[in-house]
């Protein structure tokens, strides 16, 4: 039998296809920019350039791990081997056609990165990992196509307000004003924690608004293709994203019925699948 191939997401509409592309670890994310080490570390705000990593316990080789077959099967990451502290990185995304959304980040990271702790809360995605692993993951999040410099920001705190509005030139609102526009480029003048940094870090130019709409991973009534092209309000927005809604509703229905009786998640329990009519006897 052929090995199961993961699907990641449905491909029923352009937004779903964008999402699927980001989630699939076999897709190599396009690298858009390179941020110098010093600049990257000053934005992150955990350690200075050239400073050693802080550790929470001795390296594993000195510590000596207990005898355990599972430990033999799962090799530790570089950060874990060295006993690094667990550091935090918080990313936040605008709802205005950003190339990645908060919850999608968690899925993407669980598909692409080892040894992480991540969660989504109030418009932000927090990632906690061993320090040097976190820096690798952070580079992916800031340097590749999943980051548009105007719509996706690194904010270790005070994310609030990000989604409500855009500043001048399409820059995402920030209560602490960590970023500012310099011509067409975005410059970080404060680190993630809102402390001013000595040398502002220019992380380059964002993509155009048209390009952002194409790359968008957010379902909005104004970016489903027909609506944009025809410039009318679609009376049946569900039709555009039929596969996604069908898929989500099916899962919700099965959670509900399954907890009532495990046999109810079999399809043959239904007389009519669309209307969710159960057969007699169930």
């Amino acid at each position: 039998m052929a090995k199961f191939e993961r699907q990641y997401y449905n491909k029923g509409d352009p937004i779903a296809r964008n999402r699927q592309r980001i989630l699939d670890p076999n897709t190599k994310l396009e690298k858009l920019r390179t941020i110098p080490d010093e600049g990257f570390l000053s934005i992150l705000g955990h350690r200075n350039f050239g400073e050693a990593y802080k550790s929470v316990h001795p390296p594993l080789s000195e510590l000596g791990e207990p005898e355990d077959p599972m430990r033999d099967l799962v090799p530790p990451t570089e950060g874990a081997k060295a006993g690094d502290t667990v550091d935090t990185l918080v990313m936040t995304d605008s709802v205005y056609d950003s190339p990645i959304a908060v919850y999608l980040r968690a899925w993407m990271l669980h598909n692409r990165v080892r040894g992480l702790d991540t969660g989504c809360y109030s418009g932000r995605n927090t990632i906690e990992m061993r320090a040097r692993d976190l820096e690798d993951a952070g580079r992916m999040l800031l340097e590749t196509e999943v980051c548009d410099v105007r719509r996706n920001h690194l904010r270790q705190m005070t994310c609030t307000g990000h989604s409500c509005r855009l500043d001048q030139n399409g820059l995402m609102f920030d209560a602490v004003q960590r970023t500012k526009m310099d011509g067409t480029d975005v410059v970080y003048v404060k680190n993630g924690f809102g402390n001013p940094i000595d040398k502002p870090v220019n992380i380059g130019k964002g993509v155009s608004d048209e390009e952002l709409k194409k790359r968008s991973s957010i379902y909005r009534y104004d970016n489903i293709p027909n609506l944009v092209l025809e410039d009318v309000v679609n009376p049946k927005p569900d039709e555009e994203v039929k596969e996604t809604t069908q898929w989500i509703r099916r899962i919700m229905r099965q959670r509900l019925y399954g907890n009532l009786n495990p046999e109810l998640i079999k399809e043959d329990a239904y007389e009519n699948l669309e209307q969710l009519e159960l057969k007699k006897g169930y």
Partner: protein
Amino acid sequence: MAYLTEKIDLYNDRGQVLESGIPLEAITPVQNPAVKEIADTFKRSIAVNLAGAQKALSTGHYANEYIHLPDIPNKADLPIKSGPYGKPKAVRTRTWDVPLVENADTLAAKLKEKLQVDADDGTEINIMKKGAMFYVKPSQKLCNAGIEYTAALTTTAQAMTDLVMEEFSDILDFHAAPLVHTAFYGRYPSTYEFMGGNVISLLAASCANEGPGFALRNLMVNHIVAITHSRTMQAMALSSTLEAIAHLEMGDTIGRWRRWQSLVYAYQGLNANNLVYDLVKECGSGTTGDVVGATINRALEDKVIKELKTLPSGFKFYTALDPSLWNAYVCAGTSAAVIVNQGAARAAQGVASTVLYFNDMVEHETGLPSAGYGDGVANGISMSFFSHSIYGGGSPGVFHGNHIVTRHSKGFLIPCVTAAVALDAGTAVYGPEATSGLVGDIFGEIKLLREPIESIAKGAAEIKNKF
């Protein structure tokens, strides 16, 4: 009555077969002799911290607390110990130097005499750590006479109080009795639990349980990790066994849920058909996402699920041929994902995240519900909140099944947390070393608890022909 006759093979944590052709019925808590013995051991195991009691009596530091003074006007003039910022905070009460540890042998012999119901009734007293500790196991006759599980603790604590008052009557007078009581019982009856007591049971006081049947779920994950000496799958098996017994007590394993619950226990806890081991072996160097793929692949190979229909874009929905078995596969996959992701970080804190996103991705990959039919996602998200962020809480090690966010999982969440904590290399503030050193030292000596996979497989083999 109908036995669960489907056959499973039980494997150890090295992926070697222990017993094959075991009927599912033989591992259920109602039948398996080893599981019954584990429950019995938890019910009857008591540790007496003799050195702790002696220290309490000699320093006046009873039940982890000095006696706090109320806020009275002339507090500063009282000749009492100063607290922080120069303000008097607490007072030490009367103290006595009672040589308990020196007389450990005599005390042990007399304690046995007090606890014994019949001669040779199985009462055990082991002196440990050069007399600093006793491991006490009162007889079954004594513990099973009532209908609750507290007799072991209360009789031992009361026996110790009596014994010390009798034995050291030349040092201790009539007025010392309440403080000797406090030295052993802790702050009970001022608190409803035995807070700070030096007679320690693995099980909490029954009034500390969230609801009926929670006794064996009210056991900190750190304790289980310490007992099994951080051996991941053994820890998971012990944790899963306790959950399985508790779910029986909670009324969750009856009717159509009996097989459902037994399958979760077999596949997730006891590594049935080597599922967890195989998944970890296949994806050890991979990510949570790889375990998602491997779990679904295995379910397809074993004909637990099948393809149902293909959407116009090519997306496929699956349907379960055996819904209960599918649930067990996802539970096993969840623990494998935790071992892979948290094992890579050698840090426990991400367990809730892995549980949440593994289950969510499985659902969205197949269109089938996840572990506990949605509970996996719900438990993951609520535990993320309670172990991180503004709600504080604690590191995963201090969680247990008797907790507002974990109690809804039907036996699959706490084993995952146990696996993560077992793999932690020392990142947690409240790790097993900090909270459960004593428990590990005493109960880790019992082979039945330290290596439950082997004991339960052996027990199942003994009775397999009955079904």
